[in-house]
């Protein structure tokens, strides 16, 4: 029941990776990265339900917080041109 959902989300991640590779400007790539991080968090929760492992959901929480910090830093870099 849960493993096909994870495979479907992996297909979505592949479609987004194309935009991440061919985005015309740097903010396009950052938008694709942000979307990718959210879908990865959701697929980690789905995989934790599929294999009945709580540690996957904990990794998802930490990944969400760290990707938020990463996105804010890259946005600050785009805005000013330096850190």
């Amino acid at each position: 029941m849960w493993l096909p959902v994870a495979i479907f989300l992996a297909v979505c991640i592949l479609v987004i990776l194309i935009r991440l590779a061919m985005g015309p400007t740097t903010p396009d790539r950052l938008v694709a990265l942000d979307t990718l991080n959210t879908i990865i968090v959701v697929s980690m929760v789905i995989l934790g339900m599929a294999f009945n492992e709580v540690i996957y959901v904990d990794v998802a929480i930490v990944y969400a917080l760290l990707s938020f910090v990463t996105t804010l830093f890259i946005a600050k870099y785009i805005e000013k041109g330096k850190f």
Partner: protein
Amino acid sequence: MILNVITYICIGIGCVLNLLAAVGLHRFPDVYTRLHAGTKCTTFGSIFLIAAVMIQSISVWVTEGAFSSQSILSIHAFIALIVVMLTNPTSAHAIGRAAHRSGVRPARAVVDDLEKQKQ
């Protein structure tokens, strides 16, 4: 069982919204419209998918008793949902402001109030 039907409906809505986010990143012409597609659709889709996980794990929790591993899984999935709902609009706002200040203009825009405000 009625809970399985609700779970399948939530999974269907969440999968369709995540696929719409992935397609919208390719179909829209601009950074800001891509931000609209990529952020709102994934937030809404993650709400429905984690709600499906929580419905299943809480039903197992109720039948098996208080000390099963599904209880910890449902609570941590709820914490992950809270984190996603807090951080996703904030990072979208930061990306939009940074894109406008770095000089990317909206495609086919007629009125740009933020540009007028800066002068």
